[in-house]
């Protein structure tokens, strides 16, 4: 098990280097430092001198990958790639193009993100499993059919609809909570409750339908027939036998996205004005701050790899058949 984790972590290194290289090329080769400088300086006062000055100030005046002018190890280190991308591996995100400390921003902004993402996930899971089991209990009836149709309808509607509908109904008509905004500390719940509710409702269609499929698959298996042949009640059959097995794919699916919760939700945060990492990313894209975007892409892929590793580990916890070697 320990050996497995170490090996997987080692596998992650080339993947992260690949991701890093890819984003590097996307940002610097397609979009050269000169272009970046012009974009930041605006269209009016672009003189070659101003461009050079901007590049120097932001550390873009080095060669991209190989500094032939420097000596020794500096041939590699005095490059844009080394300065801007390799440091990410130490989770040293450096400064944004506006000069802010990205690491500090991330530490500040991850809490509001988590405050939305975690309740959405947990309550959503509970709601979806309950609905799915209820539907599975009435499998093959008109209720089942109606529920599936409803799920598909809910899936087909865009998340934007739920956001705007929620803001309009709860925030404006009933005036129960503020439409958007955020306050730190204990007051935050007022601002969080609506995005969390919208997040849960918008996920019901997809989640319930998926879990229903998993339940029905388990209910069709031979061991369920054995449990019935023992004379167990439908309640025990559903909860002890089917649920235990259905949780294997459900939980491991959830664990995979767990680390990504840090990244926040792009849509929810920007619409509800929550200062989380999701809106941070959106803002950075809007203001073309590539240092932030690069940091977030790198963080996202690192977290994704952690998620996959956690998935494998969680299998060993919930499924006695799986042993990692």
């Amino acid at each position: 098990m320990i050996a497995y984790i170490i090996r997987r972590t080692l596998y992650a290194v080339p993947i992260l280097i690949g991701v890093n290289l890819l984003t590097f090329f996307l940002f610097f080769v397609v979009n050269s430092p000169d272009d970046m400088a012009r974009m930041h300086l605006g269209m009016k006062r672009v003189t070659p001198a101003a461009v050079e000055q901007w590049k120097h100030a932001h550390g873009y005046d080095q060669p991209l990958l190989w500094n032939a002018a420097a000596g020794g190890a500096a041939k590699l280190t005095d490059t844009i790639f080394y300065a801007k991308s390799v440091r990410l591996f130490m989770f040293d995100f450096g400064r944004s193009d506006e000069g802010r400390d990205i690491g500090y921003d991330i530490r500040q902004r991850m809490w509001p993100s988590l405050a939305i993402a975690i309740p959405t996930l947990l309550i959503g899971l509970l709601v979806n499993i309950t609905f799915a089991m209820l539907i599975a209990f009435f499998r093959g009836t008109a209720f089942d059919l109606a529920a599936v149709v409803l799920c598909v309808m809910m899936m087909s509607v865009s998340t934007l609809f739920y956001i705007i509908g929620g803001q309009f109904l709860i925030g404006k008509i009933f005036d129960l909570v503020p439409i958007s905004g955020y306050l730190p500390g204990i007051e935050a719940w007022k601002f969080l409750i609506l995005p969390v509710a919208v997040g849960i409702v918008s996920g019901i269609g997809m989640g319930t339908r998926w879990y229903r499929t998993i339940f029905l698959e388990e209910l069709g298996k031979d061991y369920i027939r054995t449990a019935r042949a023992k004379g167990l009640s439908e309640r025990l059959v559903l909860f002890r036998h089917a649920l235990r097995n259905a949780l294997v794919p459900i939980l491991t699916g959830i664990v995979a996205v767990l680390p990504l919760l840090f990244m926040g939700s792009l849509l929810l945060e920007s619409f509800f004005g929550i200062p989380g990492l999701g809106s941070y990313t959106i803002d950075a894209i809007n203001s073309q701050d590539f240092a932030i975007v690069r940091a977030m892409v790198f963080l996202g892929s690192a977290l994704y790899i952690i998620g996959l590793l956690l998935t494998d580990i969680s299998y060993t916890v919930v499924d006695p058949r799986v042993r990692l070697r």
Partner: protein
Amino acid sequence: MSEPLLEVRGLKTWFDTAGGPIRAVEGVDLSIARGETFALLGESGCGKSMTALSIMRLLPAAGRVVAGEVRLGARNLLALPEMAMRGVRGRQLAMIFQEPQSSLNPVLSVGTQIAETLRRRGKGSHERRVLDLLDAVGIPDPPRRAREYPHQLSGGMKQRVMIAIALAGEPELLIADEPTTALDVTIQAQVLALLRDLQRRTGMALLLITHDLGVVAEMADRVAVMYAGHVVEQAPATAFFAQPAHPYSRKLFASLPNLGKRATRLAVIRGSVPSLAHEFKACRFEARCDYAWSACRETLPRWLEHEPGRRVRCHLYDPAQAGESLTDRDFVGDTGKPMAGTEPIPVRGSLLQVDNLKVHFPIHAGLFKRVVGHVRAVDGVSLAIPPGRTLALVGESGCGKTTVGKGILQLLRPSAGSVQYAGEELTRLGGRALRRRRKELQIIFQDPYSSMNPRMMIGDILEEGMIAQRIGRTRAARLERVAALLAQVGLDADVMRRYPHEFSGGQRQRICIARALAVDPKLIICDEPTSALDVSVQAQILNLLQELQQRLGLSYLFITHNLAVVEYLAHEVAVMYLGRVVEQGTVEEVLHAPRHPYTRALLSAVPTVDPQSKREIIRLAGDLPSPANPPAGCHFHPRCPQAMPQCREGYPGATHFSTTHSARCYLYGDGAYAQDAENGAYAATEKTERHVIRSR
């Protein structure tokens, strides 16, 4: 007979499908007495399992009981509310299933799954009782096993756990649906013996559902034969095996392969089981019956008690119908006809020569997945197949027999040893040269369906190989050949434009054989080609293989666990155990004068339909060890009834009893005798006799 325990009357179970109801069970009547073993015999799709599930009221969602009664004592189970029925299940009625693998919950421990049934009888700790039950079903070290999960147990162990679960409720009737079909013969013998023993101790009745006449002969007090949704014959087992009454039952017996039928055609039941989508107005066996006459097409045969306790549904026994009496009719039909040209082909050298073949799979472990050991799936196998002959490779699951086949074809590259085909070393061939040779070596598999691309038409499937091997210049020439091939395997040319799913299992196997024949092979490796088929269909395929060998001079390497098929078809036999051949020789030598203790146990474990042969079953203890970690010395010693201290020390060499017959066992010396074959055989015989006497 006293008051019956369970009585089924006029049971009808239908399945709703988009195309209307399928009448899976159409009027089944049974009665089972306390403590007896009642066998329900039939081929796949005859409704026997559905009858059992109807009794338990555990039908799948699409099925429903349309009519009938199931009486357990004074109660009609079909009329009980679901709550009350739950009280019956697991207490008065228990059931075990064919696939112990999937029938246990993978995420609950064995102990929990047994205790669940106990908990229904009262709260409190049931630990003691769980351990007792595990002990009662012969599972060693119950405290450890109770904490384990199903995947940690072997197939035989899992079925024992299923039996323990069933026993936990102390049922009056245990329904066993093909309980040993998924198990190896030596394990099957253990489980059947266990069931019989438990039955004697607890006095429960057993409803045994099976397709295997041998199992019925071994176990049953009474038999009912099912065909196309209803019971066609009911009789006490002894009377049934002495002389089956219904034409269908007789055909079943006639289609069983065995030594006596060698070089003759096995009986086949022509046509296929009729569709159950409509109601039958006449005898449902009519289209396939050799005795059918006008009355059979007009009226449904009624139950007739032609002897006390023996009932049959056939007009032949109905004085009101039969124009001529039964005895005037000839029951032999087309069975037993000799094959055309059955003179053995003279043996000249060998077509395939395998020497010391080894196929090892590396085991990886540790941080960098270093190779820490090998699974010795095949560990030094030598075989020779002459042209036009059949060598059977026999063994239980996991013995490596399938791996031998793959190693010969170079589908798996051997770790060591040589495979010579027509004098050419295949292990050294690569790429194109190997591909050219492949056309002479073909393989057919157990599951014909999964070995065909479901989206290709039959014609294209057959043509594919020919194109790869450049056989037939033009499309027209190839298509002509496809038609000829299909005719050769007994199919019409118009199947070319159909898809694999449109065919039954037997027809698909024919198509696979045609595909193998398409490239003009000299040797066909048949990997359990009939294990997934019903006996009557198996007979068709065996006839076909036999015929093709006569006609085309093919050699077969027949990989199987079914000894009856070996007896019928093979010339030579090699018996494998844990990656090595332990005994080989001609069929007569190995099957009729077996020397190796494993061969003897294997042979004695096969249930036989012959009521005369009340042979002693040599019961092997334990399961097959893992080939990753085989026991030291003779791999068989932990299970061998005749093991000696010497057996632990090294693997015995081969002792020859004749030019063809050899075995690897210390009972016959240690290969040192090999040069002196006559002497060795003589000394060995004496030694065995002594051992047999001592072991009794």
